[in-house]
């Protein structure tokens, strides 16, 4: 049976590619509806025809579960991601963990902005804020943060040079040639970046949906996701 997947927009390409491979293998079609996690969650609550939901945000998944909108036992973490500090322009990518002494404010210069997703609302922003707090630099940087409604828009600000630095997912930074990675934030400096998925209570093809989720956790899918920079979730 064909299934519809409501997926966080930032999963984008990686999920599409994986879905194509699954379709090729099983003959089941996959329709991916991308949007922000909050919109997806609310829509599912309003009876959206989704078989599978994959969010970039554990809170909204909890919210769905709390309302009994997910099939019991189908929820799992599908992949993980990491947070990086990017700078404008081409340059050597330095995927290593950002040194504790790295002075972001100094690097920013006196009047420039640090691009992030909304720090109270959008997952990438929330993680970024936590990471900066862990480094003890949040209070100094907070007034200089330019927040965007999604992480891709923050990346665009850096790519265009409007902001010299930005905090984005590693997966986003990879595909953007106009930025380079200055370093990765320590994984323990922010809540783990996890992409939970589940079959919805109203799924019309729950078996295929579950099969797709299972397959996403398998090796073939992992390889595709890894190509896009996602990492396997912590066991």
């Amino acid at each position, binding site marked *: 049976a064909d299934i519809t997947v409501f997926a966080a927009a930032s999963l*984008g*390409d990686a999920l599409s590619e994986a879905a194509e491979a699954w379709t090729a293998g099983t003959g089941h079609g996959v329709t991916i509806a991308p949007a922000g996690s909050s919109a997806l969650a609310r*829509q599912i609550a309003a009876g959206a025809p989704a078989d599978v939901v994959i969010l970039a945000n554990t809170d909204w998944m909890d919210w769905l579960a709390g309302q009994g909108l997910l099939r019991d036992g189908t929820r799992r973490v599908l992949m993980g991601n990491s947070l990086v500090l990017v700078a404008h322009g081409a340059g050597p990518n330095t995927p290593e963990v950002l040194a504790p002494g790295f002075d972001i404010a100094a690097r920013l210069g006196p009047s420039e902005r640090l691009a992030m997703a909304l720090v109270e609302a959008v997952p990438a922003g929330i993680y970024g804020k936590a990471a900066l707090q862990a480094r003890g630099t949040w209070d100094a940087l907070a007034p200089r943060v330019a927040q965007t409604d999604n992480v*891709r828009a923050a990346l665009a600000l850096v790519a265009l040079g409007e902001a010299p630095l930005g905090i984005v997912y590693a997966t*986003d930074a*990879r*595909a953007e040639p106009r930025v380079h990675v200055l370093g990765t934030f320590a994984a323990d400096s922010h809540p783990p970046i996890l992409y939970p998925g589940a079959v919805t209570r109203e799924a019309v093809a729950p078996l295929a949906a579950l099969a797709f989720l299972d397959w996403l956790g398998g090796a073939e899918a992992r390889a595709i996701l890894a190509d896009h920079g996602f990492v396997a979730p912590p066991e």
Partner: protein
Amino acid sequence: MEFLGPDAWRAVALSLKVAFWATLAALPFGLGTAYLLARGRFPGRSLLNGLVHLPLILPPVVTGYLLLLTFGRRGPVGQLLEEWFGIVLAFRWTGAALAAAIMAFPLMVRAMRLAIEAVDPKLEAAAATLGASKLRVFATVTLPLIAPGVIAGAVLAFAKAMGEFGATITFVSNIPGQTQTVPSAIYAFLQVPGGEDTALRLVLVSVAVAMLALALSEWLARRVARRIAGR
């Protein structure tokens, strides 16, 4: 390489359909509301006026959210519509059309209202003395005279419907082939690393379509205006 993939083309076709029906369905309501606001003297006129403008004032996401709450399958109106008429708007292209229509409504009403206010009531009075009832005066005098305004309103609505994004994606989500309009598709492509190219192409297509519609309507409005004023 193809200019656009099949999903993108489907989005274009869907957007056209949505914009067309949104405009058409909104027209009679828009006209009625515009007439009420232009000529009516009733308590609650200001309230109605405010209500009509709401979609303009609210962030589109809020409008979409309110639509979801009202017309969603669990929403009060959505449930009634489904039970009584079997009409489902949520997560259908019809819902996208509803969202577009509502977002475009204030633009349409404003344009039509201005046109109605510009009609000389003396001509309507003359029609009444010739035996035309209020309704017929409207159909035979007012309506033809405001035709340019109606066309202008419809075009604004069509253009807005082609560009509407926030309310649509919030209300009916972004399901390719079903509710993924051009703006939603552009959003999806922009979320994907390297998707800017395709997004740009979609922008070009949607601009081309809307420009065509605009040019057509300009031509139409001019013809009508010329017929009316002979200028």
